């Protein structure tokens, strides 16, 4: 009959009208500024640099200025200048550090490739998204000081991944410390010139971490 399809349609919209008052599956709107957005742990938006110690952020950056992320970044939004001198990193081993580390967030597309290729867990994806600036150029160009965020913050936004990273790093550092101890003991036992042993904690830019996926995001496989 002419009109039956139209009547059915009117019925469905009426059902949705009523449903929007009581059915959460139908009314999915979040009133964003009033209720903060719920971000999943895996959410990614703009990278940040992990620092070990919040009191001395610039002194304890994990980044060793190896420039891998700068090379891999698809839109070329990372800019790094190596330091001239070396500073001891968390394990006490002298390392280069980024004298300049800038990310142009106007260009960054949050693809996470810099995080995936970083062999030092030094750069991670952030959860911030309210990043409006009044200046299109300098305002969106984040420098080292703005990018550095403490490891506690990383734990706060991505607990699973941060725990996994920390576990791995402590293991590596312990191994390095033991090795150093053993080397020192050996040195004390038989004092003769040896070539410096590369620490495990320093795979170096030439030997990246194996490309196995990180099982942290979204939990582990069943």
């Amino acid at each position, binding site marked *: *009959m002419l009109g039956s399809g139209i009547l059915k349609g009117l019925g469905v919209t*009426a059902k*949705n009208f009523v449903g929007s008052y009581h059915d959460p599956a*139908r009314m999915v709107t979040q009133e964003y500024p009033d209720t903060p957005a719920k971000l999943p742990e895996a959410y990614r938006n703009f990278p940040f640099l992990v620092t070990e110690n919040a009191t001395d952020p610039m002194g304890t950056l994990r980044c060793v200025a190896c420039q891998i992320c700068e090379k891999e970044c698809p839109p070329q939004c990372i800019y790094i200048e190596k330091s001239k001198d070396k500073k001891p990193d968390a394990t006490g081993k002298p390392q280069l550090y980024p004298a300049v580390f800038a990310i142009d967030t106007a260009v960054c597309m949050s693809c996470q490739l810099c995080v995936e290729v970083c062999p030092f867990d030094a750069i991670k994806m952030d959860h911030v998204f309210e990043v409006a600036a009044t200046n299109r150029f300098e305002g969106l160009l984040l420098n080292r000081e703005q990018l550095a965020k403490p490891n506690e913050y990383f734990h706060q936004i991505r607990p699973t991944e941060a725990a996994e990273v920390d576990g791995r790093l402590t293991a590596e550092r312990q191994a390095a410390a033991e090795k150093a101890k053993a080397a020192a003991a050996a040195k004390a036992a038989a004092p003769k010139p040896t070539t410096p042993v590369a620490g495990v904690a320093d795979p170096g830019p030439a030997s990246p971490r194996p490309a196995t996926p990180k099982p942290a995001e979204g939990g582990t496989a069943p």
Partner: protein
Amino acid sequence: MSVVATDSFLERAPLLFRDWIVGHFPVALQWLVHHLLTITAILTVFGLFFAFTTIAERKLLARLQNRLGPNRSGLPWFRTLKLWGLTQPFADAIKAITKEDIVPAVADQVLHFLAPVVIVAFSLLGFAVLPFGRYLIPVELDAAILYFFAAGTATELAIFMAGWGSRNKYSLLAAMRALAQLISYELPLILSVVPVVLVTGTLSTRDIALAQGGWTWGVLPHWHVFTPWGFAGFLIFLVAALAESNRSPFDLPEAESELIAGHLTEYSGFKYALFFMAEYFGLTALSGLGITVFLGGWQAPCAFLEFIPSWLWFMGKLAGMIVFFIWIRGTLLRLRIDQLTRLAWQFLVPLALLNLGNAAFWALTSGWTGPLALARWAISAAIVIVPFFLLGRRLTAGYAPRTYRYAA
């Protein structure tokens, strides 16, 4: 019927208020003040009605679509007071007024300016003859129905002015569509009202509303919509009214997915708002006529509800009609121009003509009682239902849901 109920203070309150103000003026000026007050009242009431129709439309459509709708605008300086976003229309008005008015360089300056003025003026004229209450009728005309349609038709002329004057191809197409729509739907619209004129024997809206008074057993009102011919007429009227006021699914002149904004493409700011306003005025006026002619006007649906003032009943019915139109808009898709005209000429006009005969039959057989009354109902219903099926089948011939095969 108790005289108290129908002649209560509330019923007469608007009139008493008007007379009180008029009394302050010298006698020579009283006629002028009288009319100015009436005009002011209509502009204020229906201006506000328009404002809240827009917010109602946005909120209802939002709910139909599982959204919240505008819920932010409150009052200035009272940040915490949100008022469910009900002050949104005032914010919209401020925005529309402060927006830059852009007139294309190649447009016909006069027509481009006149079109929004003309459309608002003509869409307001219709309100003059609507009986909003038992005693509230701005102008009592004997040929009120004729006047109403004459005034309403002129709005389409304004749409054509806008479309032609903008000198934009989309606007031009919209103008042509508007004319085609006007010619096609004016006929069923008028033909759907003629049966009522035939049965009641009057062209006056006041008398038509009065003719629908009274109840069977105090609960079943004698509205025209509750007769077979009245119901058919009301449906035809609804469809034609939707088309006349360019509402979905007949919003072809401003079909935003095809013609960008149709005749409104080159309008911005306050002129755009005027078109918008006129569209709602036209819709409200047509709904008011529909209520007067078919839905008993200001009459209460049951005898015991008569204590509520008649003008409140009218406004309530008007709100109901508007909600129904919004519901339609939230559900249906748009017709194509050839289908639109085909629907008018091949379906609505024949049906309306048959319905005219039906009303004539109804008027002739008003004396039938007892079992004959049942026969009268059956015959009258058959006169509309059978052609509805036959014409409907012809209209949708070749169109049916399909079943599909799958690859082996």
